[in-house]
């Protein structure tokens, strides 16, 4: 069960910043109606039939605006919505629009220029109270993209290629690809299987499934991320990850004692052991072509470059294991 907590207080504030403003607006509205401060009959008559809506909004915001009092609605709602989405309890747009429209007769008593400036100030206030959408966290932007991550449209050619390869074979085609390509594959087609999924350690996705990844898959994920970031196929620093695993079943004779490309070769063999049919990794100017040729030749594999832009600047290499 999802626990209700406010560990990520910034998220909470970010998503509910408007509440304080609305709370104040509701209090003013109630003062105007009940306290009879306003002498405008028009405003009172507009708001009076819907007093119950304002009382509801006032109570809901009073509960939600403070993390401590938000415990009560959170207790019932957090299993329904994440704490940051508790604001959904209030139809903010129509309520706020209703308040603004209902109070618009107040502008009638002002000078034309003052009224226009007031409206502009109100619009600026509304813009400042808002935000740009889902909060950016950990170098990930509002839409959830990491820095320098290729877009879906940029990856379309390689995705079409992968689907084309898959259509020539049976459904059991399993691919190990860079995180971006892995993510986009499942956006593009549901017929491809990948060794790991998008945001494989994202807890929010665990409400959708209970699957967990093995340590071998974890190691291969780290390797392919390294390939994606540095473009080096042999992954010299890989030995520390590989030390934790038992590779006695792997075909070490094929390695032929070449220490330089040992790391990359081991990972390719591990992927083959896990049933991977092809590895798709990005190639750029840093990619070691010798390493690719060496591993392909030594392990008797085939592969092909697939240039999205110009080859070796932002292209991909598909290594066929079966």
């Amino acid at each position, binding site marked *: 069960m999802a626990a209700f907590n406010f560990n990520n207080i910034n998220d909470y504030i970010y998503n509910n910043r408007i509440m304080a403003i609305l709370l104040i607006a509701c209090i003013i509205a109630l003062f105007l109606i009940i306290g009879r401060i306003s002498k405008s009959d028009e405003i009172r008559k507009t708001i009076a039939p819907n*007093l119950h809506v304002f009382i509801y909004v006032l109570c809901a915001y009073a509960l939600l605006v403070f993390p401590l009092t938000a415990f009560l609605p959170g207790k019932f709602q957090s299993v329904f919505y994440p704490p940051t989405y508790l604001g959904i309890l209030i139809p*903010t747009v129509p309520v706020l629009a209703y308040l603004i429209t209902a109070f618009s007769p107040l502008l009638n008593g002002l000078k034309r220029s003052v009224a226009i400036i007031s409206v502009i100030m109100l619009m600026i206030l509304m813009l400042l109270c808002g935000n740009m959408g889902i909060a950016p966290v950990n170098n990930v932007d509002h839409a959830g993209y990491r820095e320098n991550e290729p877009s879906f449209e940029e990856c379309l050619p390689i995705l079409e290629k992968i689907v084309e390869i898959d259509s020539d074979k049976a459904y059991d085609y399993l691919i190990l690809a860079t995180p971006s390509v892995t993510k986009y594959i499942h956006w593009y087609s549901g017929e491809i*299987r990948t060794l790991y999924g998008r945001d494989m350690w994202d807890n929010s996705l665990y409400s959708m*499934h209970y699957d967990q990844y093995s340590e071998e898959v974890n190691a291969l994920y780290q390797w392919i991320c390294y390939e994606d970031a540095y473009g080096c196929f042999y992954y010299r620093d890989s030995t520390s990850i590989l030390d934790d695993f038992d590779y006695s079943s792997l075909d070490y004779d094929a390695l032929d004692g070449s220490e330089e490309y040992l790391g990359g070769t081991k990972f390719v063999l591990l992927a083959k052991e896990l049933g991977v049919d092809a590895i798709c990794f990005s190639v750029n100017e840093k990619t070691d072509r010798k390493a690719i040729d060496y591993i392909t030749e030594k392990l008797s594999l085939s592969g092909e470059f697939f240039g999205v832009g110009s080859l070796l600047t932002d292209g991909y290499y598909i290594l066929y294991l079966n």
Partner: protein
Amino acid sequence: MKTILLLCFLFLCPLIPGFGALSIDKLIRESSKKVTPVSSIKPFFIRFCNAFSIGTVLMFFVLGLTSAAASFLSLGLSATSKAYAVVLIVFLTVFYFLIVIFKLASISKNGLVKNKPASQEKPGKLYYALFAASILISVFALLCTLLSKKYNAGDQMLETVNSFLGTEQLQSGTSSLYKVNPLTGLEYTNGYPSRLNFMFMPVFYAVLARTFSVKPYVLLWYIIPAFYPFAGCTLFVSIGDVLFKDKTKKVMFYFVCVFLLFCTNLGAGALGFDIVYAGYREMTFVSLILVNFTLYSCLKKKWWLALIPIILEPLAVSCKFGIGACFALAVSLFILSKLPFVKRFSEKEVG
């Protein structure tokens, strides 16, 4: 061509149950002699918006129940598509005949005299300026939707829709829903929450993509994010119609709603920019349509109508248990409206 058919389906179908429901409502009100026939006629724009918003919710309600029944019977995607088609045809035909019967009854009662709306206040320049501005903002937001990056964290709607379509070809005759983990395409190793079986939105999108041969990412990123804000805006017009009698205020209310919706983001209650890059999500549907429809029902004091979003919400959101936003809103407003001091105050002020 099929994309145009899909757009016609999304933007025209809700009008049939919507106008049908309005006809029934009007018939009931006229028979109970609460209103006179001529004074109850609203301008076509308002009637269109009322019909579209009510029709959208009714259509989703019927399709949501169909999806739940299909998953209960372990039907596959193709069988669910057929069930959708049968239910929709029956549903639309029934409402179509209701409209025809109502029209015939109306003609026989009032003759062929064209009813004109009751005299209204002349709107003035502000009316047109605000209306044009709200339309411009909406169009600009939709253009931004076409160009924006698409939300790619947390949600797995697109992958789920793709997995339904991808596994269907291999498992014809059997249920192809939730057979594989949508994020990997591999079979579930530890299973998944049974709650997902009753989620109607991925099934609805998959059926649409399958029936109209549209790529799921085109459907979810470009077509649906145009449909939900449109339905939401029609709801705002309907809410404004309930709240205000003055035409200028109705338009001003609508303009502020559009401004708040498309020009900023005020959290979960007003998604704003989230619609631009994640308009297909269940949260968009609940926040824009269900919660606002609940408010509309409560403002109209048609409490039974609020039952529809209350039932639909658990079918739309991947919750486990608890009370939904629509339930909390409807029950709270119902209780508050029955409080003696609120009733007394309202009656006193309205006179």
